[in-house]
């Protein structure tokens, strides 16, 4: 990636957060609130202000996430896409969509503004499970969503799935995967349910499936998807062929990104900025809640933490050059210990987790902490 001659493209990804949802899911701990048309109008106004401060106008990837971006009405969605139209998304332009709030108009709108990838919040194809997790869509909404995307000609489609709910069996999970495979999606993110304290499930002290069952499910998922051409490239992410999420890869490669909107984070060189999670502050243009200057040590640890999530692992040479260090020497204790345990390996210039290590990445990372 050469930078000579042109305006330097320092920041690779742009993330835009839309915090509205039509309903709140039991497990969700993102910054979100129930959609209100007037609040959304105000929000977009201030989002536009925040966007206007960005000097760079071209990114490798642009990603609109949430919340639920499609909870915006058509007018608001168009306004959002319009204000983003000054940014060029060179490789990938993604928007998160939810079946219950998607329609033909919105499909055509996103197509018109150049969105070339959607990430669909399916979570499961099983209706009773959807009700259990507090989702409001049904299988008809899902069918429709795929039809609108077909009509609009958006072919690069990722779906989100979750496993680990009490009522789920391994058969349920595999049925969901079968359905996804049959729909020819290009990418699947499948998450092991995590219960956070400030979520509906957290407050109700929801008990997820036991660890042993989840572990078996996870292994079965990896096997099943690999068998059907979906290669695992990150802990919870599987790509058909070349369809990895370019935007999310930036995070895992620990590249620089800019986040705008409520609660969004940016990392630009050694500065991390966390936007406020407080609506009132945001609507008074006090976007930034916290700015952290990361030390070299912190940068190195965070890069390891993110890189090792990817199956490809850490490109050792690139890493050493980037952080002006010698990774294998610097962390030789942690690396040797985990190689001996069969959790890490060094292969063709990459330090990466083994098939065994990928399940216990936290244990490995703790060894890399000072």
């Amino acid at each position, binding site marked *: 990636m050469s930078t000579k001659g042109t305006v330097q493209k320092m920041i690779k*990804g742009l*993330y835009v957060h839309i915090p509205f949802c039509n309903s709140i899911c039991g497990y969700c701990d993102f910054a979100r609130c129930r959609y209100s048309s007037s609040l959304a109008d105000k929000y977009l106004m201030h989002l536009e202000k925040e966007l206007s401060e960005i000097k760079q106008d071209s990114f490798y990837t642009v990603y609109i996430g949430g919340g639920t971006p499609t909870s915006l009405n058509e007018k608001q969605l168009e306004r959002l896409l319009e204000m983003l139209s000054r940014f060029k998304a060179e490789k990938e332009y993604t928007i998160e969509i939810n079946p219950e709030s998607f329609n033909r108009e919105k499909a055509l709108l996103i197509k018109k503004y150049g969105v070339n990838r959607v990430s669909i919040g399916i979570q499961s194809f099983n209706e009773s499970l959807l009700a259990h997790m507090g989702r409001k869509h049904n299988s008809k909404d899902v069918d429709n969503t795929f039809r609108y995307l077909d009509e609009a000609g958006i072919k690069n489609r990722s779906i989100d799935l979750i496993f680990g709910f009490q009522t789920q069996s391994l058969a349920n999970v595999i049925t969901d995967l079968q359905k996804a495979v049959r729909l020819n999606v290009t990418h699947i993110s499948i*998450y*092991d*349910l*995590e219960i956070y304290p400030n979520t509906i499930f957290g407050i109700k002290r929801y008990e997820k499936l036991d*660890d*042993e069952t*989840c*572990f*078996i499910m*996870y292994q079965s998922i990896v096997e099943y998807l690999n068998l059907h051409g979906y290669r695992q490239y990150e*802990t*919870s992410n599987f790509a058909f062929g070349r369809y990895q999420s370019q935007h*999310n890869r*930036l*995070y*895992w490669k620990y590249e620089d*990104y800019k*986040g705008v909107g409520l*609660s*969004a*984070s*940016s*990392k630009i060189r050694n500065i*991390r900025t*966390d936007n406020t999670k407080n609506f009132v502050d945001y609507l008074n243009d006090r976007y930034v809640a916290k700015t*952290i200057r990361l030390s070299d040590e912190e940068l190195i*640890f*965070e890069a390891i*933490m*993110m890189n090792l*999530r990817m199956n490809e692992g850490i490109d050792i040479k690139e890493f050493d050059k980037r952080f002006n260090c010698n990774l294998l020497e610097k962390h030789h204790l942690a690396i040797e210990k985990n190689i001996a*345990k*069969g*959790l890490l390996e060094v292969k063709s210039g990459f330090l990466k987790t083994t098939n*065994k290590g*990928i*399940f*216990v*990445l*936290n*244990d490995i*990372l*703790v060894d890399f*902490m000072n």
Partner: protein
Amino acid sequence: MDQKYIRNFSIIAHIDHGKSTLADRILEATKTVQSRDMVSQILDDLDLERERGITIKLNAVALTYDADDGNSYRFHLIDTPGHVDFTYEVSRSLAACEGAVLVVDASQGVEAQTLANVYLAIDNNLEVIPVINKIDLPNAMVDYVKQEIEHDIGLDTSNAPLISAKTGINIHEVLESIVKYIPAPSGDPKAPLQALIFDSYYDSYRGVIAAIRIKNGTLKVGDNIRFMSNGNSYLVTELGIRSPKEINKQSLGCGEVGWLAASIKSVKDVRVGDTITTTDNPCKQPLPGYKQLLPMVYCGLYPTDNGRYNDLRDALEKLQLNDASLVFEAETSQALGFGFRCGFLGLLHMDVVQERLEREYNLDLIATAPSVIYEVKLTNGKTLRIDNPALVPASQYVDKISEPFVSAKIMSPAEYIGPIMELCQKKRGIYKDIIYLDEKRVMVVYELPLSEIVFDFFDRLKSCTKGYASLDYELIEYRSSSLQRMDVLINGEVVDALASIVHSDFAYQRGSNITRRLKELIPSQLFEIPVQAAIGGRVIARTNIKAYRKNVLAKCYGGDISRKKKLLEKQKEGKKRMKYVGEVEIPQEAFMALLSMGEEIK
């Protein structure tokens, strides 16, 4: 101070029934403390006590009260701890009083724990004034509770003040009742000195400070005094009362409660219940009721970070300055490294010491399951006293093992006799007596092995009597039993810190329970781990911890980095509390698994 204007009393109450709040109100009402200076609940001066709602350290406060009769009275409010481990201390504090205020929650009624202390007060011939608290609560049942007090305890409630300590309603009546119903101290000021020690604590400038009650005679600064239990003599350097700050006095008169300093170096020399007299004019007899307290329960305490062994020793030494009943000596464990075997009065005492070490000295500790002292007679005729099960020699060298038996008195409503007896029977108890205290209350007396009480008796007693029973026990003798050492092996290695002494009748059951508990507590590793229980090299129970383990964050995108990093930091903290046996990581709770074996008795 004229004796007839002195009133010495304690407040007795169940946890949460409002003892400390009432004490606060009394301090305010007597203007001992301005309300704005008040840290709520002044008598409980340790954080820990406040948090657990119990009072461990004794304290006495002098108050001045101008009564309706126009006289000015001196009240000494003596605080008492409230748990079975400290029964003896409670009885000594009560012995320093003439009366007690019994606080009963109008919405809860009389509770079992209160009863034990009320009986203790009655045993000490105290005048007990019932006070009904929390009458402002919507669910207050004043008449019902009055009836309960009359019926269950046998106290007249016709003059019982109805109060709300929280809002201050009728506190005045309580103060007047104290003047009216609690007798003035009766001692003879001209007799030789007899002063009762009911508490002590260490002060780094003046040495040990003893809390005392003058029963007979008078004590002055400069007197030569003698402790009757050990004959040690000291020169009194300072005397005083607390209000609640220390106020120095030149003398303490008959009936007064105060403190003394005499350059005493160790709390061990100042024994609660001991009698102080003067060397010039000694009394003939000590006051009745002195007992020397011995540790009954032992456990190993180890720093999770072996580098902090010296810090742990320093901390134990400091705690011991104020706690004569805490004993410790160095020991080593293959599994846990260097640590200390510590002796305690009982389980609560053990808990409190552990918490103080962790909180006040910032230590991370691993504690082994508590044990009693066993007497092990060897085949060569020698007898060993062993407080650590891991040190019991292999069975071929052991002739017999004896264990301490206690006489346990369980007080309870009569309807629970059945479950209590069943429990005692299962705990190898020997039935002695059932005494009907009145038609509703009984005292069940059993002889029980102390090891069973240390094990989980108290929890089970509480659960089979819905919390109504109270337990008091004292050591009677050592008896030989059919006991054996049970070892636990994890991944093929004996973990010495998990050894226990079991009765042969229960060996199989305990073996399978402990292996099952450990399976729940030890996190899965990347390889299968056998967990075995063995007696004399013979495996009696086994489970396997399967080799599955997942520990990875499902989601980690751009906005998650800070938060996820914190989770990892927390995991790293948790790891500090793990111990490695071979390659297996064992969390702290596993070492206590011997104690909480779940549904052992059905």
